[in-house]
């Protein structure tokens, strides 16, 4: 730091009341700059990542994160703008965000868009709050949200946070909605049905239109969990198959880097009836000037501070423009091609209970291997790490025993997919002892999670 050239003759105590001032230095480490650089550089090498490894983590869409997006999102007029600048000083940013609203509206078939939610789960909650406001405006007090048993846990958790009651809906053996169970649970009290399509087994639920009609018949709304949009871009649109609202995960579908667990973003799209209830502000256009439209009397209000996770949205914008309409459709085509290819190569050793075809991901089962050789999905996952591959998602969804959910994404080459499949073949021929003790080449072997949860140590203690 340079010397402070102003008020040099005054002390902290001259400017602040004594009772408010700290009496001791903060308990923070004292490190040299090279020490910090070495520490974090060395830490980084202990991670697997998309930049270093194939990462077929089902339901997370770990596609390549284009480097150009990083450079462009770092432009001064994108990265270094303050949220409370005047609208006139932000016309480029507002133009981009306005275009983003329009583009997401077109891709989803649901024209009213809020870019405010900070993550997929936040989008779910925001959409449910929007639905509640819509029903209240109509004088209806609906209380129930139907969520399939195969759905992501955020669905019921969001329902509770929105003041609604989650009711579980059964899935059939194929992971699709059990229509009889749906019919038995539909009544005038149902506010929203939350559905993931393609579903968590990687299958497109062809009944979706009929499901939506049944829900609409009792006056309810259909929410689409957009986690799996990578399978259907430009092929079919949620708004066209009956959804009234949805969220996108731009960090998945539109290639935002995952940053070790975040940030993401969770923009939501709704139909015109629900539009007035979306959070405010949204970006408007009037007399060729972009502005923040705060004058929305029916809006639910804010769900976070400032505009939204703009840094993630800027990357998504770059990604969409890089592809154009035909390119986006090709994204889904290649994602589906890669997943089906992997499925066709491994199903003879890891059966896929839900059929020989899938969308952008599929769920294989290690149940037979477990029965015959005592090898579990967890063992396979851990051994894959030794072979230099990140593991698929294991033990989700629960409807498949010993499940391994694989999502290769469109950005992997056949060569990589082949190498992964070959590794799986070799692993299944290894002894069960080898697999139980895997991984052996990583920095650590399997950690003791029981001790971690039983006697939690969540901050560093001097002496450790």
């Amino acid at each position, binding site marked *: 730091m340079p010397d402070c050239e102003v008020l040099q003759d005054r002390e902290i105590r001259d400017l602040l009341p004594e009772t408010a001032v700290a009496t001791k230095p903060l308990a923070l480490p004292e490190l040299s700059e090279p020490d910090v650089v070495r520490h974090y550089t060395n830490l980084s090498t202990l991670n697997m990542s998309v930049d270093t490894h194939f990462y077929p983590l089902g339901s997370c869409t770990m596609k390549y994160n284009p480097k150009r997006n990083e450079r462009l999102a770092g432009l001064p007029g994108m990265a270094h703008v303050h949220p409370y600048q005047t609208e006139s000083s932000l016309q480029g940013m507002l133009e981009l965000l306005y275009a983003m609203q329009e583009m997401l509206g077109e891709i989803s078939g649901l024209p009213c868009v809020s870019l405010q939610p900070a993550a997929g789960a936040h989008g779910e909650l925001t959409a449910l*709050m929007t639905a509640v406001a819509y029903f209240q405006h109509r004088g209806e007090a609906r209380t129930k949200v139907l969520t399939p048993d195969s759905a992501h846990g955020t669905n019921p958790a969001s329902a509770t946070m929105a003041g609604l009651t989650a009711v579980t809906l059964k899935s059939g053996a194929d992971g699709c909605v059990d229509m009889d169970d749906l019919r038995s649970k539909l009544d005038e009290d149902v506010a929203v049905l939350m559905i993931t399509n393609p579903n968590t087994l990687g299958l497109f639920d062809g009944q979706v239109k009929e499901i939506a009609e049944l829900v609409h018949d009792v006056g309810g709304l259909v929410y689409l969990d957009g986690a799996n949009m990578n399978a259907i871009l430009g092929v079919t649109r949620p708004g066209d198959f009956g959804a009234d609202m949805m969220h996108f995960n731009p960090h998945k579908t539109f290639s935002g880097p995952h940053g070790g667990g975040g940030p993401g973003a969770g923009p939501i799209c709704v139909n015109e009836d629900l539009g007035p209830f979306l959070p405010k502000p949204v970006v408007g256009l009037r007399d060729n000037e972009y502005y923040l439209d705060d004058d929305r009397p029916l809006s639910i209000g804010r769900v976070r501070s400032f505009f939204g996770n703009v840094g993630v949205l800027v990357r998504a914008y770059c990604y969409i423009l890089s592809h154009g309409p035909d390119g986006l459709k090709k994204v889904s085509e290649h994602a589906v091609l890669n997943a089906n290819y992997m499925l066709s190569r491994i199903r003879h050793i890891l059966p896929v209970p839900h059929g020989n075809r899938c969308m952008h991901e599929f769920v294989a089962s290690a149940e037979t291997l477990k029965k015959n050789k005592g090898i579990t999905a967890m063992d396979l996952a851990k051994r894959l790490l030794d072979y230099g591959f990140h593991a698929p998602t294991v033990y989700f969804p629960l409807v498949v025993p010993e499940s391994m959910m694989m999502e290769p994404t469109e950005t992997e080459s056949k060569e990589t997919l082949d190498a992964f499949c070959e590794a799986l073949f070799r692993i299944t021929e290894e002894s069960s002892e080898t697999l139980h003790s895997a991984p052996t080449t990583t920095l650590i072997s399997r950690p003791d999670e029981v001790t971690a949860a039983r006697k939690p140590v969540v901050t560093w203690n001097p002496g450790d």
Partner: protein
Amino acid sequence: MSYFFNTESDIAEMLKAIGAESIEELFDVIPEELRLGRSLDLPSAMSEIELTRHMGELSAKNKSTESHLCFLGGGAYDHFVPAVVDNLAARGEFYTSYTPYQPEVSQGNLQAMFEYQSLICGLTGMDVSNASLYDGASAAIEAVLMCRAATRRSHRVVVAGTVHPEYREVMETYLRELDCDLVVVDSEDEVVSPAAIEAALDEQTACLVLQHPNFFGCLEDMESLVATAKSFDVQVVQIFDPISLGVLKRPGDLGVDVAVAEGQSLGNPLLYGGPYLGILACRESFMRRMPGRIAGQTVTDSDRRCWVLTLQTREQHIRRDKATSNICSNQGLFALRASIYLSLVGPEGIKEVATHCLKKSHYACEQLESKGWMRRSASPFFKEFVVRDPRGDISACLQTAEACGVLAGVPLGQWYPHLEDCLLIAVTEKRSGQEIDRLVEALAFDGEPNETNRRLDRPHLQSASQSL
């Protein structure tokens, strides 16, 4: 340009293995009547060169903190970001990894999360921290929900009117359908009155939410406010400014129960409002009710120290509708940046940054007062203060300042109608004495800006920020 890497012959082989004639066939499961049947109505694809030009044009239409001197605050600040932060956080191994579901190949992220939690505890003086939430406002509402659940007093929450108005709006949105009164205690002055707070509290109140330094930059009388809350057995949630803890007492020293903050100040870029970093730290007794992810220390079977995600039964993937929150991510990258920042500046560095903010903002305030821009309040402040425009035309004055290369302050009328002629001005350690003088001149300026005022006399930094 797009990112597919299979050749035509690869594709033919893949289709053969699948047993499909064409890629289209793989979509047969989608009923024909649900198909879009046309191209999406989107701009056509751009090459990297075209996209770079387009984004350059959009970026150039924005004024930025690199083209202009920034005195804007209100929860997001133009603090200095050391090059080390950008450089380390841009490493692909951090940047392009995800939630550490496989701890054996995620020790880098897990240890970084654990260190983040430890640094936040050191910074705040609280017992435990989670691995971060979306932003300051989400941390504040999650703290409120946590207090409601822990105290089983779910119907009443009291918040000071000096808390960031957008944070209060978020609380209002979340609590509206949860059968909970959100009582806002307004005050004439720029600090909340302890007597008014006392009048609003009762034995059924779950928590009292305070911001210190508050939205106007002023220090609240924390000692008596905390004591008042304790007398009703009400939990205290303090929204703090991380940088202020270089000079101010820590939330833990003030006896608050939950400390939350916007962590943008800790090495994170402004990004037009996000993504940012929600900090949440609390007393140990809240540990199993904390929302979001938590990293914990454990050992391997060969007794080697390591880290895992822990206390997962709190979370939605296990507890579903009974989870402590629906949040299933953390702002890993921004928590990492905050950790790098805190490790780099250390206890002396943060005190120095805070002292600069304190002195420079007071210098700015004194200079402005000498030009007739008076404060309304006599309350002590940290790095931000409210002044009244002597001419009473805030929007014209902001435009003039902008033309002089200065982003002068945040107009308060949008949230507080009685402060329509007031500006909230923040001064960080980045500003030199000369730059502060430019602010004072820009606000005092009457008439057309001249050429020297319009152009910046500092080098235009090429952005090195490769971060979100």
